[in-house]
């Protein structure tokens, strides 16, 4: 755990992809796709079917994953980074940040103070519905305009739309209150609006509290690839999306779609509508602010549940409605994002397969392990190679590169949450608006229950298997079933270890550092660290 997080506060940018790098990546992608083709040629054979329904389910899970992998690989081939453009002088810019009851006051103090240090002339607005005079005090002390927006539907989006009516700046930066912007933020993004078709400019979301817990680290790890190669690829195909914080909108674009979108994935709704209205989007892979990731497991799950429920709304409501207005790549991109949380269902089924074998003796597929390995290994090798290679385009490789096993554990541990979000969407059942926790909530979260249930189930099953095979299975059957049984136990053991990893996060979440992370953020340091960069982009050419 590096004690020195000083490097976090300096401007960072992902590298531009060179022709040579793209070429190598292209070769890897072709290799990967071919391996998948060869695997599929081997996989889909009648002799491999043991139980047809289970084989269909298993195949659907596997090939759904493969299809998504191909889509993301192909989008990597379009990785591109917009050339920096100097911000034109004299534009009128607003920064919107919202406050809700219960959000810590100290955080607003820090963020609003940081906003005041942003170089490009702008007005900061605090969109407040706390009915607490101290928030107004904090806003005004930091030179921000306090707007009281109480009782509007749609929480954050409602307040933004209310504020749009009471302001008239041409550009609006929507900043989450936990994100501390760097002085050069607006100078980095405003130039892109020179193109009159650009509707919004999204920049990377980076964090400064990931070293405070397993959950925070894992949650941050899940985003490194997204804000690096993934969004850069989506930018390349004209489908980069707006993600909550750090998105700068052209007022005209927001107004053309009737204001900021509502719902649990309001940012994605806004993005798809702006794309649908024909605006272009820019994704710039630069770090010009840092915010917070959930530090405890429960808060992380709440955030994921909110997104899982919200994203499906985009899939079921927005994509069909706007389908005709989107480009082919945008359609593919939004459908891919919209189905991300199906991972909950696939993980659940995947986890169930060995238990169906243990309890009912049903195998989905009749495959020898070795040929499977021989066909699957090339896919795995190319997959890992591509995964590692595209880390070249992370925004801050020094702190972000690596094997993100905590992120994988956390994603696995969230499968019940994803599944719940999916099911709620299917039956169109609402979940209440849950603000992403800005402060850790103590205790043993109810989100840990499915993990505990899985761990208990696994241990009981293994105990049963040991008992059964020691005392009940006839010696004449033992050796013929040994390999199959224990390889299934091994297979189930992977998921078991993942759940155990999730429990580490849960356990650690009970006792997290007391100190508020923003207390130690030094705004003067941020100004100093980014002075050179600011000078270089603002000096007249």
């Amino acid at each position, binding site marked *: 755990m590096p004690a020195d997080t000083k490097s976090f506060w300096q401007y960072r940018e992902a590298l531009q992809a060179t022709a040579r790098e793209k*070429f190598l990546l292209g070769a890897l992608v072709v290799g990967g796709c071919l391996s998948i083709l060869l695997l599929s040629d081997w996989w889909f054979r009648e002799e491999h079917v043991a139980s047809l329904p289970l084989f269909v389910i298993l195949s659907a899970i596997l090939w759904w994953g493969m299809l998504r992998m191909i889509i993301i690989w192909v989008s990597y081939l379009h990785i591109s980074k917009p050339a920096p453009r100097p911000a034109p002088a004299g534009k009128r810019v607003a920064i919107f940040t919202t406050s809700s009851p219960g959000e810590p006051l100290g955080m607003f103090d820090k963020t609003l103070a940081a906003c005041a240090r942003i170089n490009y002339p702008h007005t900061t607005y605090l969109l407040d519905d706390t009915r607490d005079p101290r928030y107004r005090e904090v806003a005004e002390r930091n030179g921000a305009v306090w707007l009281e927006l109480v009782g509007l539907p749609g929480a954050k989006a409602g307040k933004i739309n209310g504020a749009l009516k009471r302001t008239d700046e041409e550009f609006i930066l929507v900043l989450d209150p936990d994100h501390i912007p760097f002085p050069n933020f607006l100078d980095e993004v405003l130039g892109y609006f020179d193109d009159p078709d650009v509707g919004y400019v999204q920049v990377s979301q980076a964090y400064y509290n990931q070293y405070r817990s397993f959950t925070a680290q894992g949650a941050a790890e899940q985003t490194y690839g997204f804000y690096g190669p993934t969004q850069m690829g989506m930018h390349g195909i004209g489908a980069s999306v707006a993600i909550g914080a750090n998105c700068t909108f052209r007022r005209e674009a927001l107004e053309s779609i009737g204001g900021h979108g509502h719902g649990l994935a309001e940012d994605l709704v806004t993005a798809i509508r702006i794309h649908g209205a024909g605006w272009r989007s820019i994704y710039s892979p630069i770090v010009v602010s840092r915010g917070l990731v959930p530090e405890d497991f429960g808060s992380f799950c709440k955030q994921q549940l909110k997104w899982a429920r919200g994203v499906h709304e985009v899939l079921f409501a927005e994509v069909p409605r706007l389908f005709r207005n989107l480009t082919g790549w945008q359609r593919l991109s939004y459908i891919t994002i919209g189905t991300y949380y199906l991972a909950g269902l696939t993980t659940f089924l995947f986890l169930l397969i060995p238990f169906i074998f243990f309890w009912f003796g049903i195998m989905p597929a009749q495959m020898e392990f070795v040929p499977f390995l021989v066909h699957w290994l090339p896919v795995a090798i190319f997959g890992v190679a591509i995964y590692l290679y595209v880390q070249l385009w992370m925004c801050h490789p020094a702190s972000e590169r690596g094997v993100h096993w905590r992120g994988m554990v956390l994603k696995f541990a969230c499968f019940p949450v994803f599944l719940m979000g999916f099911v709620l969407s299917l039956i169109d059942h609402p979940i209440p608006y849950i603000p992403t926790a800005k402060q850790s909530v103590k205790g043993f979260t109810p989100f840990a229950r499915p993990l505990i249930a899985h761990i208990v189930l696994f241990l009981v099953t293994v105990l049963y298997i040991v008992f059964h095979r020691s005392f009940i299975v006839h*010696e004449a*059957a033992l*050796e013929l079933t040994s390999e199959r049984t*224990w390889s299934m136990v091994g297979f189930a053991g992977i998921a078991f270890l993942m759940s155990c990893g999730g429990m580490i996060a849960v356990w650690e979440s009970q006792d997290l550092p007391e100190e508020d992370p923003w207390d130690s953020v030094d705004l003067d340091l941020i100004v100093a660290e980014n002075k050179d960069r600011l000078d270089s982009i603002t000096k007249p050419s």
Partner: protein
Amino acid sequence: MYRITLTVLAFGIGIALVMALTYAGQKSSGPIEDAVTTIGTKVTEIEHEVVVSTQEKSRADYLSWFQPYRIGTYRISHPDTILWGAYDNTQSDSYEPIVALEDTLHMKFAVVQIYSAWGSKPDERFPFNQAKAIYDLGSIPMITWEPWLNDFDNEKFPTKGDITNRNWGGMKAIAAGEYDAYIDEWAGRVKTFGANIYLRLGHEMNDPYRYPWGPQNNKPEEYIAAWKHVHDRFIAAGAKNVQWIWSPHPAYRQFNEYYPGDAYVDWIGIPTLNYGTVAPWSQWWSFNDIFGVYYDSLAVFKKPVMLSEIGCLRVGGSREKWFADALANLPVRYPLVKAILFYHSNNDNTTMDKTLDWTLLRDKPTIQAIRTAVSRWKLPPMHQPAVKTP
């Protein structure tokens, strides 16, 4: 143009990478595969040891008298008793059906039969795990090894013959070494296995209507050449733990023409199945019709004889009587018979388009008839086909 060139090049490199991996994967039927197979075998072995050590007496303990047959070269080819054995078609996940039959018959089967086809698929390799399981149960595996040649991969096993029908002239191709890679790998695994096995290669080779390794595709001398070639490859591979069973169908008289020679054969295997009147070509043949009348012409080979598949259907006569007649005083009537293997399949569709049931388990009169006949035999007490110990 520049872009197109780059794209084409990237494709080329991608394809090359895949080919390199695939090639490495095929070659490394070595490292990865061996490692995984070894792990699987180790797991099986450890579990077997742990579980068996907790049990009071395993099946192998009842067959301890049989140990000299399983290891070493002398006893296996000079049997001093009659060995019992069986094949059961439901034995793929467990040998419990075998155990159930032997318990009912008050015997212990020293030999368990497995059928294994030739081919380049993974399940056509030497059935190591099955053989090991049989060994650990105290018995010896008898593997009927059937050279069906159409299951070979055309790339890995090119042939000078007809690629669409490898069976045509297949024995010649075997003798010419076209399948040596397969044979050598099989033999290598047999050597690794270590303990004695019975190997019945290309059985009923003189039956013109049945198997592709028979007269329809091959001449007798070609069959013999193939047999010798396979045998020699085993010796060359160091797989000397094999008892070679030459298994003609005596009803087709010219079986002598197919005999590979005394140096290449350890046992004579004879299938003795009575199909009764299920088919137009069959009638109720007694054991004497099927086996007895040919005994003298088989005895000239001076090799121990194994009744590799004994069975009788119930259509057209009394099965009880058939077995009673067959087994009555058998050691005296046919002194060269040293092993008898029940053919115990409830789902035999190899000869007809209907399914035949050869099982005895629930046929109490037949079971009783077999037990009575065998109990009257006069064999040395130790070798009295193991009466079930309490």
